[in-house]
């Protein structure tokens, strides 16, 4: 194994939570409100949770088949060297491509809301540098960092709901299922794709100190995410109504701006932003780590650290050209990304699992 660091099951669970939660929190209320309207919470609570559970089941099953290997290592064993290596390569592409989108999202958000005149490159550079620093220190440190920051993340996610609780009108959620189930299904695509990001487990499951607990940890993460994200969507729609929510670029952020606690705590958006930056840094570091580790394994290197700088440079460059304006980003997130996501998050792992089961391939004796 390239990284000897071990994480515990609870750390894995928290990592998966941050991984999905940090970006989903910000973008999902708007994306779902646009397609599913006031029923957005249903898409998040039911459909995408089911999808997430499915992904978790497939990934952990693969993990049990190949307890000490990651997907880059066992896909050639299952599919044969040529196809297997191609699949590995496509995963490397997926990790880096997704990461580039996230880095871009981050920079655009900062420009749109906080520092409009600061050059985009500054944000990209800083966040990639921070993530690279974390990746350099390995998964163990990322896990610990996340564990340390998690209470803050949770407070910012749930605390905000408490802050605006007086302004939430649950009547805004009615009528339920006005246009039938179709918009809900459509609206569940992006949150499902997001939830499916837990597919990164395929890379980090071997580092779990108690592999048997992996499935439980991932299921906890998916369900808990479902609850928290649903609460946030309900809060957003409850305060702003479905129509206004879909007009806002960052509804959750506007919510932070709107909420107030006894006059003293007003305009907490900057604080929410701070916590969000922390969560996002961890997310980028996770994708970064997986990309670097996968590539190092693909090239059969002894150490993954030399790849950190080149991939960082690729990330910086790619995130600057991956899309041109914020609407293109929303399009990318809600239309293009789900297609890729379903392929990489469910289709390929499921195929792998099926073929491995049929061919009775098992790993684990490699070390």
């Amino acid at each position: 194994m390239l990284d000897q660091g071990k994480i515990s099951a609870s750390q894995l669970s928290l990592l998966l939570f941050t991984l999905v939660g940090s970006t989903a929190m910000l973008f999902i209320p708007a994306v779902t409100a646009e397609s599913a309207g006031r029923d957005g919470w249903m898409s998040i609570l039911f459909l995408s949770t089911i999808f997430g559970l499915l992904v978790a089941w497939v990934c952990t099953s693969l993990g049990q088949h190949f307890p000490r290997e990651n997907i880059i290592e066992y896909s050639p064993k299952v599919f044969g060297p040529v196809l297997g290596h191609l699949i590995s390569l496509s995963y490397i592409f997926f990790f880096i491509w997704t990461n580039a989108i996230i880095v871009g999202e981050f920079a655009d958000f900062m420009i749109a809301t906080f520092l409009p005149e600061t050059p985009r490159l500054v944000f990209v550079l800083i966040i990639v540098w921070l993530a690279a620093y974390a990746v350099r220190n390995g998964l163990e440190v990322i896990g610990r960092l996340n564990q340390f920051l998690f209470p803050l993340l949770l407070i910012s996610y749930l605390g905000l709901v408490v802050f605006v609780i007086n302004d939430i009108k649950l009547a805004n959620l009615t009528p339920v299922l006005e246009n039938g189930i179709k918009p809900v299904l459509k609206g569940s695509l992006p949150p499902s794709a997001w939830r499916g990001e837990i597919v990164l487990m395929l890379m980090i499951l071997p580092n779990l100190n108690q592999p048997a607990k992996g499935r439980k940890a991932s299921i906890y993460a998916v369900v808990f995410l479902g609850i928290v994200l649903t609460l946030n969507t309900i809060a957003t729609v409850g305060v702003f109504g479905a129509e206004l929510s879909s007009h806002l670029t960052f509804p959750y952020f506007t919510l932070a701006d709107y909420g107030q606690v006894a006059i003293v705590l007003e305009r907490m958006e900057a604080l929410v932003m701070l916590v969000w930056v922390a969560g996002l840094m961890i997310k980028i570091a996770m994708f970064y780590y997986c990309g670097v580790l996968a590539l190092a394994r693909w090239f059969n290197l002894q150490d993954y650290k030399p790849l950190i700088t080149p991939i960082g440079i690729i990330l910086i460059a790619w995130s600057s050209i991956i899309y041109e304006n914020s609407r293109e980003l929303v399009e990318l997130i809600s239309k293009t990304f789900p297609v890729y996501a379903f392929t990489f998050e469910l289709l390929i792992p499921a195929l792998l699992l099926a073929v491995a089961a049929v061919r009775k391939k098992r790993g684990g004796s490699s070390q």
Partner: protein
Amino acid sequence: MLRNIFKKLKKLADRERPYTKGEHLVENIPLSTNLARNIQHLKEIFQDCSDVVFREYAIGGSKPVKAAIFYVDGLVNTSLLSDAALNPLMVDSQWVNEFGKVNSRNAYKIVKDRLLTIGEIIETNQVNELADHIMTGTTALLLDGSEQALILNTRNWESRAVEEPETEAVVRGPRDGFTENIRVNTAHIRRRIRTSRLKSEVMKIGTLTKTDVFILYIKDIVDNKVVEEVRTRLSRIDTDSILESGYIEEFIEDEPFTPFAQMNVTERPDKVAAGLLEGQVAIMVDNTPFVLMVPYTFPQFLSSPEDHYNRYPWATFVRLLRIVALIIAMLGPSVYVAITSYHQEMIPTSLLISIASSREGIPFPAFVEAILMEVTFEILREAGVRLPRPIGPAISFVGALVIGEAAVTAKLVSPIMVVVVGLTAIASFTIPSLEGAIAVRLIRFPIIFLAGALGLFGIMVALLAILIHLCALRSFGVPFLSPLAPLSPRDLKDSFVRFPWWAMFTRPHMTGSKEPVRQGFSQKPQTPPPRKNGNQKGGGKDA
């Protein structure tokens, strides 16, 4: 980054300097039976050492045996020397007649067994070893006709009286502190922990200074791996001098490129004792009252020994207070800079207006103002340390009041900035560990720079970088942030809060897992049932 620059510099430096160790090689010379020759050797070694005293005399009556003593004036207890070594040899030896008279053949044995009335004696037959021992304050006794020399422990190092440590004052708790004398220091610990399981291994480090370094630990509580690690790291040190524990600290720490200390530094014996009982290892160095303790974790950063003596609700409150103070000390000025120059929307309108009116006419941006004031404060602080004791407070007073007041009146800085900097300064003094306070004061500056460049985002970037660094930091293999990350909930009992003593059954998991249970369970005080024929008047009587 820093690491790379350092490497480059080192490479540059190494290229130009031929690498030789400044070691003075001496060959090992055995002692001979001829006293004159031995004296000759020693005199050569101690040439021009005016503090080395040499005296020749004779033992026994009729056929006196020649003898000589060497010692360093000022390091030995001369009255003990004359009582225990000179008097019996020169006077009493005349009456010894058990094996007949003292002669050059039996002199050594008689002297050693019968005549010397002194506790500790070491024998040696090497001239260099002898010389080394003389330097530590022992007295060398050489006898004619013997190739063994006796080393008498007559050490009497002048030492400061035991005083209350100045750097770590407490309200409640013992007032004694370590001194420069390592024996006094070990005695402090031994008095507190009276078990033979308290071990103290000795090492001599420094080819010239030959400083005594003690490794203290309690066997079967401490993690053997940590002790082994301490031993190997200490034995790897190859230097000619150790003058303070700081030398050792920098040689043996896990991560050299960091402002954070990875060892606890203290002058309080009670703190060392408490650490030892939790499975830590203490490293004592001669000639300094500062003792190192490893492994060092984040909760110790914020805890004072007093927390264990005060009532637990108060101790908990104080610890939480210290966290607030830590945050203020680290982020105070930078948050002010970030909010006033980037996030004015966060300030309540009326406060914003009053800040704005107080800043009206100030020439500098808040960021420059903050740097200016912080540097001024650090200068004042440094001056306060360096100044002679009687003037120190006066200068701080002048600095704080006069300069602060005048700067505000002259519209150089805004009054709110003075408040912020003052608060920060005071908050930084609440951090109980000396090293911790230094680290916090140091990282404050880069954070102010980042806050000035990017606002709150800059602060977050700095905090994240620091956090990643802290998560990766280890002190002798133990993660610095434990028990927070990795989380071990049981150990949180003595971290941000302090549970009552009867609830803390176990030692910290990271250091004391070998013998985890330290006391009986369920010792919560029970109120006894009311006595039947109570109501005794004057409860003080039965005491």
